[in-house]
């Protein structure tokens, strides 16, 4: 079963696509389940001003990419680097046991982002 949050971001994602000449780009994969997410973004004045993603994976992983993008857009670098793994996991709301692997994906996205802007 999918929560309303996951269903909404899976069915109608707002951040799918590519950015022309992205300033940053990284990919996250889960070697066990095979899910892959690509993130591209641009920054201005220590903020993420434009972000897009693509995802190959299950419904929850597609939603995870979208929730991640929404959570970082227009946020300052200081705010982004201060986020904890618990805060990142909480962004996904309640997950079934079979969807828990997306918490790892979300944490990996956060780590890659911090490494890119830190």
């Amino acid at each position, binding site marked *: 079963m*999918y929560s309303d949050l996951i*269903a909404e971001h*899976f*069915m109608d*994602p707002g951040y*799918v696509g*590519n950015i022309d000449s992205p300033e940053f780009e990284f*990919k996250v994969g*889960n070697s*066990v*389940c*095979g*899910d*892959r997410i*690509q993130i591209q973004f641009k920054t201005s004045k220590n903020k993420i001003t434009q972000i897009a993603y*693509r*995802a*190959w*994976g*299950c*419904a*929850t*992983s*597609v939603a995870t990419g979208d929730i991640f993008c929404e959570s970082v857009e227009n946020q300052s670098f200081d705010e982004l680097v201060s986020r904890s793994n618990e805060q990142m996991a909480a962004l996904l709301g309640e997950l079934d046991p*079979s*969807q*828990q*692997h997306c918490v*790892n994906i979300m944490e990996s996205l956060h780590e890659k982002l911090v490494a890119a802007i830190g």
Partner: protein
Amino acid sequence: MDKQTLSYYFDYNATTPISESVTNTMKSNLSLFYNPSSNSTLAGESKEVIHRARRNVAKLLGCEPAQVFFVSGGSEANNWAIKGYLLNLYKNPGHIITSAIEHPSVLESLKYLEKQFNFQVTYIEPQANGAISAQDVGRAFNPRTQFISLMYANNETGVIQPVEFIQKLLHSGVKFHIDGVQYIGKCPTDVKSLNVDFMSFSAHKFYGPKGIGGLFVKDPKALSPLIHGGGQEMGMRAGTENMLAISGIGQAADDCNNWMDSWYKHYVDCKNYLIKRLQELPFKIDFNGDIDTTKSVPNTLNFSIDGVRGEAVAAFLDKKYNIAVSVGSACSNNKQNKLSHVLVAMGLDEERVQSALRVSFGRYTTFKDIDYFVDGLTFSVTKLQNIGAIA
């Protein structure tokens, strides 16, 4: 029954809706509370409900009513056939042949016998077309072989296993169990000419209620009782009968006896139409297992779609179109649990297994429903391929 819901339902191998005739029969028997084991006059009607059901099921299978035993469903029937026979031989545990694509109720029962009683089990791998080779089974025999357990049709691919050929290879004294759960009620069956020892079946796969199924037993003396007690089910499964459910399976069997030919033709027409529509799609489809309607049950189609995960497609179909299908892989951090053991055993690579869908339709499916499914599939896959187009 909500006709619109049925129009969106493509998961008949998981379970079928209870047909109107079965519903009516069960409703009409609701007031029959007399214990069929009683000798009172009033219990006669209850007894007759069970006798009639047993006769109908025997006709469906092509056997005698005394060879039909009602149980709670396919898993129980599989467990009983395997353990009810082989545990009689626990002092002399021998060799068992099965396949790698069996239902978990067979595989787990055999693992139990391996671990607890030192039986030796050979698991035959299927060929790329989803069928096991009769020759491979023939080669697996050894002088200690005591039992073979194989499914008639695979639940995921629908591929029919060559049980007639395998029966001809049987060595003397070797018992043959067929898990017929995905075959009985869809295709004509004759256990007499098959000459098998045990055949499992389940009512909710052919428009009967859940919680009732049965086991055909050629020679009941060869099998130990499943439940000891008051002598019900001819002394093989004690406990007051689930009379309503038994009346339901009896009606479901009677419907099959009367209409099987026309339904079978309907399934073949639907499958051929779905295959044609899928082959016209603008993206690549790979069928998993033989799709020939003489080599697979005609209500089942398993295929993989390039560039998407089956789980995501199924979720999209469910959320946007209310369409129900099954998938070949559940997303999980546990690799062993997530991939279909059937598709993996057929040698398909991980990405193809992950992108697999099982579509199974039934009596109530129309060409218009198939068009609705294909339109929904086209939109869902196109959208997900765009989302997943990672450079």
